[in-house]
């Protein structure tokens, strides 16, 4: 970023009649140079990202689903070990599995993401309640 401002300052300084222009003109011109330089920088970044994506091996939605399903299953297992699993989570996992088996990985991903969220919330609930319950005790 410092290079851009320096470039802008140099460009402005090199402009003819620089010493005779007022401050607002100088500011406007330097801001224009900086904005153009930033655009170029963003385009560079974008190009680099594109190149990296093209170089990396493609991950199929099926593979993504498998990873997500394993994670959701493991988190549900953890919630069960803590005695805090919800009744709504296992049916979501089952529906996700059925969707994936039918080839609808988009639906599968949607369901398994929800299942994972619920399992994580249940684990969080167990952790919170391990101490929070004391505040509710009748005194």
């Amino acid at each position, binding site marked *: 970023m410092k290079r851009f401002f320096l470039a802008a300052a140099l460009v402005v300084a090199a402009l003819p009649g620089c010493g005779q222009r007022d401050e607002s003109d100088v500011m406007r011109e330097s801001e224009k140079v900086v904005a153009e330089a930033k655009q170029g920088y963003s385009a560079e970044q974008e190009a680099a990202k594109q190149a990296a994506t093209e170089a990396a091996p493609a991950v199929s939605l099926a593979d993504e689903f498998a990873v997500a399903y394993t994670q959701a299953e493991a988190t549900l297992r953890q919630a*069960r070990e803590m*005695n*805090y*699993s*919800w*009744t*709504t989570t*296992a049916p979501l996992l089952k529906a996700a599995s059925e969707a994936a088996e039918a080839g609808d990985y988009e639906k599968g991903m949607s369901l398994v993401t929800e299942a994972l969220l*619920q399992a994580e919330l249940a684990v969080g*609930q167990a952790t919170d*309640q391990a101490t*929070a*319950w*004391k505040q*509710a*005790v*009748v*005194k």
Partner: protein
Amino acid sequence: MKKVFPLVFAFTALFSGQLLADPEGDREAFVRYFEQRFPDVAFEEYANGVYALDKPAYEQWLQIEEFPPYELAVEEGEQLFNTPFANGKGYADCFANGGIGIRQNYPYFDGDRGEVVTLEYAINLCREANGEEPLKYKKGPIASISAYMASTSRGKPFAMDLGDDPRALAAYNDGKQYYYSKRGQLNFSCADCHVKNAGMQIRADRLSAGLGHATHFPVYRSKWGEMGTLHRRFDGCNKQVRAEPLPAQGEEYRNLEYFLTYMSNGMQTNGPGARK
């Protein structure tokens, strides 16, 4: 001293929660809460559950009690109770006083087993000790046998004594923690409904008070159309807040029953009961 101090520290850390616990103080606070909340309801009335808080429902319930829906289960339970096992022995051989008039003694903490023993748990311990298959815990024959045994104890007060065993206190505290912990997708604890919101409407029903909850089980519930045990109700309550229920007569539910019954210590047993 260098060796003793860490041991003392560890012992204190392990048991300090239990040593500082005061079940009788908890119970008195529990009773006081409901006395203040419902000043017109007598202590003994809480054994009638929601009918202590809902006058119209109470009148209907009295009419139901003229021809109690649990009578058939009591008759069946008496027959099962008196049917000998394959080895010639029977339930009467497993229980004090032949199993008659002892409902108020359960649950208790068994020092030898190191765990809470409820009446239904004891029934199956008896069966297994005599070579019989255990019964399922939520309904069916076990509810009938428990109903018969409860019917022989009507009017006897619960007189639980946690004693000095720190394991008993730990079981009590475990049940207390369960009672007050929010759970399930709906994030409710037992106390949310049966302490904080006791007497309030929940859809078409009124929430009963936690005080007196354990006195009238097993119960004939109109919703079930049959008898069910206390742990069947725990199961249903957990599902209603969208929490996966735990095993009936597992350690967690037995500890919960231990805590819940202690909160009703001094109240008379009045099972089996009929409820909506």
